[in-house]
């Protein structure tokens, strides 16, 4: 089949998705086998096509904000792989100086606004980022990501209303992986098509297949165009799937292995790989070279993290106030 997207786009998607996946696979190993990473760790594995499609449909000045399942989007935005791995290790060289951990990656200069742990909170904060863009008269947009579970928080409704009222340049992206921890979407609402939640505010909305960067790109590009032209927000419900448990400690009794396998059969990386080979955008050996490059980057990040120093203990009272002379209570 002839493709609408260029060879370069496909190769970019392939490499980005591989990078995110291999980063998480090795990090998970360091967590489970060596205990070098601690705390909650939520893998993005299975959802990478969303990051890929969103990247090609936006420009670097556009801002991303998401929840705790944040590794993929941080890497996509260009937060360095070294600093991401170091953050997981809690090292001073991490993208949040070892203060955030897995759930709180940040990269202000890369326009990645985190990394948020309270389910749904960033729906409102992302709306505020968009408010500032409009206020400043830029043509930047904000991609504001949240889960299917987060879609049931009240803040979604207040944010949608404000964003429509003020026509803010925000794209709400619900990454619907069908589960909020152990709770499937149909157990959380009478409305299982999350994109329909936009109807109450007459907000444009779309439901997209999230296992293909192509469909993600197209849907996001339409929404981005509208937002840049002053047309206001869009809700995109992107259907995806997480292959791993909710977090590392999840025994996953709420779903069957068959269900997981069914989605793995439509793996976005394998699909993109097929398109590349079928269209002769690259040969097997070229893809192997990409895989090798990705492995090198990821392995180097592990070395970097392991060799990096811990933050100094006096960092406990740093980065709490911008005010350098703040009088902390120290007993």
């Amino acid at each position: 089949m002839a493709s609408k997207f260029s060879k370069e786009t496909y190769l970019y998607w392939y490499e980005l998705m591989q990078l995110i996946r291999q980063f998480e696979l090795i990090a998970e190993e360091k967590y489970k086998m060596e205990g070098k990473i601690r705390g909650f760790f939520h893998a993005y594995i299975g959802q990478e096509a969303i990051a890929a499609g969103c990247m090609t449909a936006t420009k670097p000045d556009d801002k991303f904000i998401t929840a705790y399942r944040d590794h993929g989007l941080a890497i996509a935005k260009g937060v360095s792989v070294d600093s991401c791995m170091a953050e997981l290790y809690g090292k001073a060289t991490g993208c949040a100086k070892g203060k955030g951990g897995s759930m709180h990656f940040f990269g202000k200069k890369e326009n990645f606004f985190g990394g948020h742990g309270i389910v749904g909170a960033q729906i409102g904060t992302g709306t505020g980022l968009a408010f500032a863009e409009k206020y400043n008269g830029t043509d930047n947009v904000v991609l504001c990501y949240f889960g299917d579970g987060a879609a049931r928080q009240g803040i979604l409704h207040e944010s949608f209303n404000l964003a429509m009222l003020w026509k803010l340049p925000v794209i709400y992206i619900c990454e619907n992986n069908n589960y909020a921890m152990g709770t499937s979407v149909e157990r959380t609402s009478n409305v299982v098509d999350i994109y329909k939640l936009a109807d109450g505010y007459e907000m444009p909305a779309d439901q997209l297949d999230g296992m293909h960067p192509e469909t993600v790109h197209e849907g996001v590009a339409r929404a981005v165009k509208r937002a840049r032209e002053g047309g206001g927000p869009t809700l995109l419900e992107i259907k995806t799937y997480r292959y791993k448990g909710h977090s590392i400690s999840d025994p996953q009794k709420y779903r069957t292995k068959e269900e997981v396998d069914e989605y793995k059969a439509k793996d976005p990386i394998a699909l993109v790989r097929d398109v590349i080979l079928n269209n002769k955008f690259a040969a097997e050996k070229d893809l192997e070279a990409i895989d090798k490059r990705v492995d090198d980057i990821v392995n180097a990040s592990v070395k970097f993290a392991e060799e990096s120093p811990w933050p100094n203990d006096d960092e406990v009272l740093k980065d709490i106030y911008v005010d350098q002379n703040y009088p902390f209570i120290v007993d």
Partner: protein
Amino acid sequence: MARSIAFRDALREAMSEEMRRDERVFLMGEEVAEYNGAYKVSQGMLAEFGAKRIIDTPIAELGFTAVGVGAAQNGLRPVVEFMTWNFAVLALDQILNTASKMLAMSGGQISCPIVFRGGNGSAGQLGAQHSTAFEAMYANIPGIKVVSPSNGYDAKGLLKQAIRYEEDPVMFMESEQMYGDKMEIPEEEYYIELGKADVKRKGTDVTIVSFNKMMKVALGAAAELEKEGISAEVIDLRTIRPLDWKTILESVKKTNRLVIVEEQWPFASVSSEISYVIQKEGFDYLDAPIRRITAADAPLHYAPNLVAAALPSIERTVKLVKEVMYLKK
């Protein structure tokens, strides 16, 4: 007959016993039913009580808290589980502006017998948003009671009391890090009154007051101090509001020295309140300033060394006790 069970089992027994006794009691929260509880506190309760009484909610803390508060005003006795108290912040409006004030606003007509419970405080390297200890903040609110037990035995008795006998909203604060702690607990039913501190260790030289998982630090410090011939009395508050300051005062009359160990932030914390009451009521008995160890005056960071540096430790407690005893080193 006693048997050894985990903290989480003790909590489950408390809820299940009260649910068997009283049809009006139900449990509601995220993942409490089909998942058997995010921390397995409610394991098996769906199977016993069914979906009418063990209720999974969407992630909608403000909404389901409000439903609980309304149901309590209208004749039911809800137990609402927060996956952790960090998420209850979204529901604070219902707790502070409605539940705590109903009786006052209605001139005594409408009460709100509801128990909110869940893990509280830090639980390892979970980062700033999952690590707040909320006892002091809730204890600031008139109209509610705040319980924060340190072991399974106390937790069971206090939770049963809260569900069965308390007619006012109770905030019940557990700890993810204690759910697995095992302890001998009697088969027979028992209740523990709220508002009563418990002397967990007798001593004569210094009084250490603590609660929740920081009791481990307090007791650990007392054990260390004993090796050096210092006898510490350790008091477990168990209930934060109302505060049983009389038990602390009685101890201070004997030891003349007070150290408080807590995981709260220092500003207007539980130790601030204790210090005020004890200096007021026991000024003449004090031979040294009241001192405390709190969590650092900062959000908790992720890195393991920063977690360790920010939280109270046995070492720091031992050192502080020696300071109030005017001992070198």
